[in-house]
């Protein structure tokens, strides 16, 4: 039963209509969570005793950084599925993920830089986590550049998928870099949820932002995916019935 559903996912028309139906289910919670998280983070949460109000950028920085890793992992998994089982829509998913992931990475780097200036006295530091996160941005850009270098779509799909899979090694490196090296960056504090040091008023908006960003990713992915499917299937017959002008 589950297998037939998985098989149907591979069919572009089904995926197209499924994505259309699912989008509002993700879009509205995204809006609510992000608005709630922003309000909670900017207004309700008390100022940090060390950093004052400057710490509030964490509500954008931490989720962005987390998403940059999560999106790359999603992209790599989809790429692997496309490579191994030759599922064409998997390549469409990976292609849709890349610009989103690159944006999150850039956001994480910029917000991190803005946060770092008052905290560490400098806009940039070549410490492991920052450096590898910058490398991640280059990996996203490399993926998109390789994709656009090929005229043949199939080759573009498969070559860039290979690149994504090989590059996934950077994701655990970034994640564990703060533990492996003595880094300027603070050790993970949010992940240890049960033993977290943050008070609830600080933590809950942060969790809302994490969830909101995740749902935001899914929403944008679904929208982009529909666009990808349309482009790839533009000469197929089901397009005419599915797309009403």
């Amino acid at each position, binding site marked *: 039963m589950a297998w037939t559903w998985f098989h149907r996912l591979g069919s572009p028309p089904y995926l197209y209509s499924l994505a259309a139906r699912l989008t509002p289910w993700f879009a509205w919670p995204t809006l609510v969570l992000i608005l709630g998280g922003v309000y909670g983070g900017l207004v309700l949460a008390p100022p940090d005793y060390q950093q004052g109000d400057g710490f509030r950028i964490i509500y954008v920085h931490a989720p962005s950084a987390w998403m940059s890793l999560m999106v790359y992992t999603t992209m790599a998994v989809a790429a692997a599925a496309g490579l191994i089982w*030759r599922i064409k829509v998997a390549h469409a998913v990976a292609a849709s993920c890349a610009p989103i992931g690159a944006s999150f990475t850039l956001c994480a780097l910029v917000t991190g830089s803005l946060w770092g200036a008052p905290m560490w006295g400098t806009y940039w530091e070549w410490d492991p986590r920052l450096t590898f996160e910058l490398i991640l941005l280059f990996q996203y850009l490399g993926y998109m550049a390789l994709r656009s270098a090929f005229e043949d*779509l*199939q080759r573009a799909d498969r070559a860039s998928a290979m690149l994504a899979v090989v590059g996934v090694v950077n994701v655990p490196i970034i994640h564990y870099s703060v533990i492996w090296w003595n880094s300027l960056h603070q050790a993970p504090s949010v992940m240890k949820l049960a033993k977290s040091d943050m008070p609830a008023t600080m933590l809950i908006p942060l969790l809302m932002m994490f969830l909101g960003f995740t749902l935001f990713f899914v929403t944008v992915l679904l929208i982009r995916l529909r666009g990808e499917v349309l482009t790839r299937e533009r*000469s197929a017959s089901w397009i005419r019935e599915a797309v009403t002008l």
Partner: protein
Amino acid sequence: MAAATLLQAENLHLWRGDRHVLNGIALAVEGGECLQLTGSNGAGKTSLLRTLCGLMYPEEGRVLWVGRNIREDLRGFHAELAYIGHEPPLKADLSPRENLRYWIGVRWPLASDVINDALERVGAGSYRDRPVRTLSAGQKRRVALASLALTSVPLWLLDEPTTNLDKEGQQLVGALINEHLERGGLVVAAIHHDLSVRATALRRFELTRE
């Protein structure tokens, strides 16, 4: 002993972007048979040959060799075929002898005199030590054909084997193929005109553009 079907293709579908290059192709080739693929440019002859040898993956359908799907043991299948594409795969800075030594020698051990004999057979003996860059297109084609004289694989997949060859060269191709067919081998060749092969062993398969 009745000739048996050795190479089979079932319901091959291949897309290249929006183009439906192979549309439900099915064919069967028996031992001792030469299948000529004909069709206009862009009809999919090269794509079909590449699908048959396993370089291209069809979206649907499969290729069978000696009754088994080639995907099950692709390398084993490759060990039993010889493929010569559009351009003779020769390095310009090496001589024909060196080229054959590195090209075919990687597959089977070759003694120096065996290579010389093969080059003589195709009429390339006189320029066997000159760099390939100095040879004409027809001469390069002959050197590529010499590779066929060095293999003993059953399946030959040839893409336009007579390009750039004069009348004598075309007869040579026919002779090589005839000998191969008599030994029980099979040939699939993409070609515009008829090969000078024994008529009883020749079949045609036409590909049309959609």
